[in-house]
């Protein structure tokens, strides 16, 4: 499915580089030309847009499935890591492509995201400078992003993709579901590749192509007013896959929101594949019956807890932080982070104590806790934040 989307993106992208001109003066004009005066230009651009968004969504879902069926450790560890690398590249690809239309949405979204980088200690500011090629977003930024988007990232993705598929074969195919009673795998362990898998893939490929084309026709790709560096729109939001991070920024000191917390998350998601977990459980959704129940508990906990946290932070705590009068790093960063860490630890210990969870089940429940939390942040950031980033209902925005 991701492969089909990648091919769609490759084909539509190849068409567009013949029309698009990567400079602040010409970019917007060339897109208008593509949309209004090129036959099927609007369709091609729409397909590229929807293909890209779908690819991110599908890649995230794939990652979730791989994790929740326990196919990320032991001999599959290297493929989990390759997959994470590809996930990063897909995000980077979406992010670099976001700037290219050079309209108000893209200009300010990229401004916000690159400014987030500046909060990383020590290297942040030089990194930010390197990426945008100066102090402000301009021609150099565009050239950087264009080169990354059209050459560097696709090439790396092709290399990693090949490696990824080859490692699946090396690991003896995808994980096979087994019955919960610990019996042998349901049905035969192996079926012929052709036609069993190829037929399914073909059908799915056709469906994906159809969905992308229909979305491109019905909704097209958004294009706002041309970028105006002197006028920020209200509200200014990052691309939807980074909105969760932006939401985090409203609740934590920047040092924690864009550095400490993401860094811990990366450590966790990489490190988890090095844990010595029970490989015989792999193959089933949520591993065991108890695994399912605990995952549900974790999901409900994080939805309730994060919603409450956001509301309390917004309505009760306010801009002064959790401990007004102290340094912002403490009142907005260290203090809430410590409270959260203690909360997570309590959750983990009570899983062990009251549910007698095994290591695999507890790790899985924690993963669900974090994944759902991030999803809630994303939903709030995307649909419940209006002018001035104030909380409001989606229909009021």
């Amino acid at each position: 499915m991701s492969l089909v989307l990648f091919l769609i993106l490759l084909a539509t992208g190849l068409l567009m580089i013949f029309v698009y001109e990567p400079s602040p003066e010409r970019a917007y004009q060339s897109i208008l030309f593509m949309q209004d005066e090129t036959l099927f230009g609007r369709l091609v651009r729409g397909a590229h847009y929807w293909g890209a968004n779908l690819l991110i969504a599908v890649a995230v879902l794939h990652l979730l499935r791989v994790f929740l069926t326990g196919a990320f450790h032991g001999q599959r560890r290297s493929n989990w890591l390759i997959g994470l690398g590809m996930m990063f590249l897909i995000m980077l690809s979406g992010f670099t492509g976001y700037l290219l239309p050079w309209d108000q949405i893209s200009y300010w979204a990229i401004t916000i995201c690159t400014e987030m980088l500046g909060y990383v200690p020590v290297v942040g500011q030089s990194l930010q400078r390197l990426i945008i090629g100066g102090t402000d977003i301009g021609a150099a930024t565009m050239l950087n992003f264009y080169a990354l988007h059209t050459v560097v990232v696709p090439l790396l993705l092709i290399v990693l993709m090949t490696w990824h598929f080859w490692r699946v074969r090396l690991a003896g195919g995808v994980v096979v579901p087994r019955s919960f009673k610990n019996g042998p795998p349901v049905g035969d362990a192996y079926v012929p590749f052709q036609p069993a898998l190829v037929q399914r893939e073909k059908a799915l490929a056709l469906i994906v192509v159809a969905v992308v084309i229909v979305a491109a026709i019905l909704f097209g790709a958004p294009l706002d007013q041309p970028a105006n560096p002197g006028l920020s729109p209200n509200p200014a939001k990052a691309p939807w896959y980074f909105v969760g991070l932006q939401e985090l920024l409203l609740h934590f000191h920047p040092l924690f929101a864009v550095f400490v917390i993401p860094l811990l998350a990366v450590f966790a998601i990489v490190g988890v594949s090095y844990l010595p977990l029970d490989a015989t459980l792999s193959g089933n959704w949520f591993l065991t019956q108890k695994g399912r129940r605990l995952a549900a508990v974790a999901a409900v906990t994080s939805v309730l807890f994060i919603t409450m946290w956001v509301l309390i932070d917004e309505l009760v705590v306010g801009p002064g932080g959790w401990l007004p009068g102290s340094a912002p790093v403490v009142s907005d960063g260290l203090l809430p982070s410590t409270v959260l860490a203690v909360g997570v630890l309590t959750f983990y210990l009570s899983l062990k104590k009251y549910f007698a969870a095994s290591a695999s089940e507890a790790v899985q429940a924690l993963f669900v806790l974090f994944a759902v939390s991030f999803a809630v942040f994303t939903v709030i950031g995307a649909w419940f934040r209006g002018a001035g980033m104030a909380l409001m209902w989606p229909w009021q925005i």
Partner: protein
Amino acid sequence: MADIDKPRRSFLARMTALFAGLAALEAGWIATSFFGARRSERSLPDGNGVQIAGPVERFEVGSVTAFGEGHFYLARLDDGGFLALHRKCTHLGCTVPWNADEERFACPCHGSAFDIRGDVLSAPAVRALELFPVQIENGIVKVDTTKPIRRASFESHQVTRA
């Protein structure tokens, strides 16, 4: 025979490694020069980057004047001193408009606010607005827009007085 070959082989291997390392260094140097050249070119927009704002009398005490091209606001404080404030919000880089009625810079993106001296009035921003160096020569205010200066908060030595 094999014993005679050994030193020669290890010598050749070491030489190969040495030249490979040199080649990598050269490649890295060339690559960084590509990025470096472009950056220094950008840090000098139109000539020397010094913008002439105008004669001192033109700016009323307690007023804020926007200079769109130079990306800054020229603020004249109540004591008559000048500050050139970068228009970029220190939170996430949005452009902050000056609200003359409320006497504050209010960021439209995430609700940060700054006073006329650039100090933070309300979070999420944690640093005061960045500054450009101001010079007053023969009663003419000049602002060097080459590089904004980061600061934590307002201090009186940042003000240029006529």
